């Protein structure tokens, strides 16, 4: 059903330009990886704290506030490099299970991060240095698990 759309994607000027260039795809991928590093760091600082490890001397809300621009910035880098990467091989992606796993998990991970985790992280407990409630730990674990699936499936697109 969506296949004509994916064919159109690959036929776009950007898709064709990236597909026909020797350097474009590798460089976009390398920058995509830089984005992955920043995303990993920005997520982990907060998620580890929610899990009760890492920067435990700091209130979650403070860490989340500092990490936020790097979280959003890295996501912007991921999307602006990821879209042309996708356009260059949209038809391959259409028939790739890993691609669909990644794209179905990504919106869930984004929604969870900005709707659920954001709210939990902003909530200031009576003692800002407490080790974290069961809810906090669960939110940290779910966040890491969701983004792990996105990253792992993303890497596996190239292998399947």
């Amino acid at each position, binding site marked *: 059903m969506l296949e004509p759309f994916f064919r159109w994607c690959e036929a776009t000027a950007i898709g064709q330009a990236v597909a026909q260039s*020797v350097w474009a795809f*590798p460089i976009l*991928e*390398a*920058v995509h*990886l*830089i984005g*992955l*590093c*920043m*995303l*990993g*760091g*920005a*997520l*982990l*600082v907060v998620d*580890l704290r929610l899990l009760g*490890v*890492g*920067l*435990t*001397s*700091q209130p979650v809300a*403070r*860490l989340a506030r*500092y*990490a936020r*621009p*790097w979280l959003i910035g890295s996501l912007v880098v991921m999307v602006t490099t990821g879209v042309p990467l996708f356009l260059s091989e949209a038809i391959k992606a259409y028939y790739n299970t890993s691609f669909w796993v990644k794209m179905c998990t990504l919106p869930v991970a984004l929604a969870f991060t900005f709707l659920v985790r954001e709210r939990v992280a902003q909530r200031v407990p009576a003692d800002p240095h407490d080790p974290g409630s069961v809810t906090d730990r669960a939110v940290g674990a779910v966040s890491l698990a969701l983004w*792990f699936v996105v*990253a*792992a499936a993303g*890497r*596996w697109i190239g*292998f399947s």
Partner: protein
Amino acid sequence: MIERFLGWLGETPWSVALLESLYAWPLVESTHVLALGLFVGTTAMMDLRLAGIAFRKVPVTAFTGRLLPWTRIGFAIMTVTGLLLFYSQPLRYYHNVFFRVKVVVLILAGINAAVFHVGAHRSALEWDHDTRPPRGARIAGAVSLSAWAVVVITGRLIAYNWFDCDIQPQPAWVNWLAGCAAVLEGTE
């Protein structure tokens, strides 16, 4: 000498098995890539603090004390999986321009970390809460951020054989950088 050893290493049964495996090699490579988020990610957050760019009210010793263990775990995973990947194709990587640049910059990143450790880090408690750490720390943070970015980019590009010895002709400096002279003379 090195080439003979790496050639032998690449012909050992485990090396061949790893390279030709259906799932082992992709799994090792995927672990290497995903561990970037842990290793380079946490390193970058600490570097941003050292450079005085982010996390300005978080004490530096919180990073070096509580986050660094996670960075070390990431580094251990990167090292083990990286060595395995090298073991799967030692001679090819040895002659790969991007691999060579990556290793050199890796060493520079290590020296930078060591210099920071015996330098600015020693007096960390004195500037623990400074929103703008001393010059030495800021330089260490900036150098680290740049070095790891180069390592990640060159690491990704190792996959491409554009400058490999069997792709000729190449500019002389490329062949020099890839150490292709011996290969091209057929004396390997």
